[in-house]
């Protein structure tokens, strides 16, 4: 590489042409979705809530694994805590359900900190099973608590003061807001110093540590955020289905769903889990007549993607990361040499 004879004032840019186009596409879609309750049927709204919760879950799992490098199969612990938190706080304590959601999310966040000290003693695949054991312990303890219905579960009644149409619309808006919050928080984290640190950790954890990146505390922050996001999704699921049992909300199936969504969509990108959730949801609907076979197909698909196309669907669609809807990287732009765009570190796998 020969340095240009004259180097002008170098600018750092973050937005790209594709990200401006992305913004121009996303905003109208969001506006249309926000009008959903006025346009679409209640049944479709409830189905979209399921899709939205999958997007939130995928985004949160991606934050954990795609950026933080932590494969967890125990995030259902927080889904359950969010679901039980909402129902218990709203029904038994009589707090407004829409206030109960953030309270449940904060409780999940507070619980995730001490849990992280246990889980972080393990790494790699053992971290994965360790988080699963912790989720099982939370489930087994929930089943022993009579105040939350033991093994039979709970039914959310606090929303019954609303007419069914209103209830469904409010839950729909809440879920749409949750998607926006989850994606926005991920985007802001990855744009921040923390995100840069994760890119460094991904490339070389030891070197990053020696340069002052606080590896463990960075991971803990991401674990906290991801747990809160999963609790948010859990409360959406509870508000949508109205009845929860330990078997349903603490199901390890949720971890399988999250992994498939992120792996198929594209790990380590913000767009990937969104695409992955849409594809996953479509496959789930399409293959629902085939019973357990849809999970066989998804499992095979996930293995193929991991081995042959590790960047997932978004990796293929974005031409190996050249298109970015969410600009989280840095680009150096030399105004004298318009075509000499030097790419620097980008937080993408």
């Amino acid at each position, binding site marked *: 590489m020969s340095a240009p004879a004259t180097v002008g004032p170098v600018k750092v840019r973050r937005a790209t042409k594709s990200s401006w186009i992305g913004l121009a596409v996303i905003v109208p879609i969001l506006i249309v979705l926000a009008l959903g309750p006025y346009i679409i049927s209640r049944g479709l709204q409830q189905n979209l809530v399921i899709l939205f919760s999958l997007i939130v879950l995928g985004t949160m799992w991606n934050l954990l694994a795609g950026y933080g490098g932590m494969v967890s199969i125990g995030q259902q612990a927080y889904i359950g805590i969010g679901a039980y938190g909402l129902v218990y706080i709203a029904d038994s304590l009589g707090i407004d359900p829409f206030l109960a959601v953030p309270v449940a999310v904060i409780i999940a966040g507070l619980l995730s900190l001490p849990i992280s000290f246990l889980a972080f003693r393990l790494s790699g695949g053992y971290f*994965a*099973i360790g988080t699963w054991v912790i989720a099982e312990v939370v489930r087994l303890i929930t089943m022993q608590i009579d105040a939350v219905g033991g093994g039979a579960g709970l039914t959310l009644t606090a929303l019954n003061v609303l007419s069914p149409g209103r209830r469904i619309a409010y839950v729909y808006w809440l879920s749409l807001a949750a998607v926006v919050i989850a994606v926005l928080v991920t985007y802001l984290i990855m744009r921040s110093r923390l995100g840069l640190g994760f890119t460094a950790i991904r490339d070389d954890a030891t070197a990053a540590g020696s340069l002052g990146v606080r590896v463990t505390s960075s991971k803990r922050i991401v674990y906290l955020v991801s747990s809160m996001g999963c609790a948010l999704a859990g409360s959406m699921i509870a508000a949508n289905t109205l009845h929860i049992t330990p078997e349903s909300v603490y199901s390890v199936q949720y971890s399988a769903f999250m992994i498939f969504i992120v792996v198929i969509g594209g790990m380590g990108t913000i767009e990937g889990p969104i695409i992955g959730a849409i594809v996953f949801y479509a496959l789930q609907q399409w293959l629902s007549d085939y019973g357990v076979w849809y999970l*066989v197909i998804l*499992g095979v698909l*996930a*293995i193929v993607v991991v081995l042959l196309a590790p960047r997932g669907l978004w990796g293929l669609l974005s031409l190996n990361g050249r298109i970015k809807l969410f600009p989280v990287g840095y680009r150096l732009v030399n105004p004298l040499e318009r075509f000499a765009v030097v790419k620097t570190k980008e937080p993408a796998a």
Partner: protein
Amino acid sequence: MDWLNAVLQGLLLGGLYALLAAGLSLMFGVMRIVNLAHGVLAVVAAYMGYFLVHNFHINAFLTLIVVIPVMAGIGWVLQMGLFNPSLKSGGLAPILVAFGIAVVITNLLQAFFTADTRSIDAGMLGVQSIQVTDTIYIGVFPLITFVVGVLVIAGLQVYLNRTRDGLAMRAASDDKDAAQLMGIDNRRIYAKATALAIGIVGIAGVFLGIRTQFSPTYGDATLIFAFEAVIIGGLGSLWGTLIGGIVLGVAQTVGAQINPSYGVLFGNLVFLAILAFRPTGLLQKAVNS
């Protein structure tokens, strides 16, 4: 006397957990692969045993003559076809591939065998017991399981220390590039290790099927128990895995003695306590890299 009995039963149960955990320990030791499909592979072996006993009326223990080599073959194929390529991809690929395998096999079992629970009929040997005192009986089958567990761990230890392949596995574990330079074909030695690990899972699975009711999703609990035995005992130590299995078994039976629904929870809590207060496990290798 009930308590002593619970401890004794737990100790014998520990033999089964050690048997289940040995393969997990071996694969991690040699390749740093945490095989998330480990539990469901044990269930596959249990179904194989069930199928042979049910359809051909073979003695439950004789099914091992078929089950062990078939499971070892499955292990070989999985390693050559999926795990070796995933190790090349690096990063999170091995964990994700293993997870995918677990989900695929679990649901295939569900499709072919339905979600009904089954159990392998081992005839008289499955129910016979030896009277020790007036109130304490030891089941013949749990005793056999325990002895086989100890023998397998001991045999594996000898294999890793004395045989050419065992030494190659340890060499590849310590430094895979250097091992390759010394003429070891890592891919083949990995496949041998996985074949051995899954062959042992074959024994564990058939024993599991004789001991308890199983269904396609039973692999989840099996994986968790095997993993807990490995961590309680200490990563990298086979004898530790045996101790870990025993500690887990005793914790479960003693917990169940307090309240039948506390068994699994107690085992999990003992595991978490070890993780909190002695994260290297009970018998961590003296020298750890």
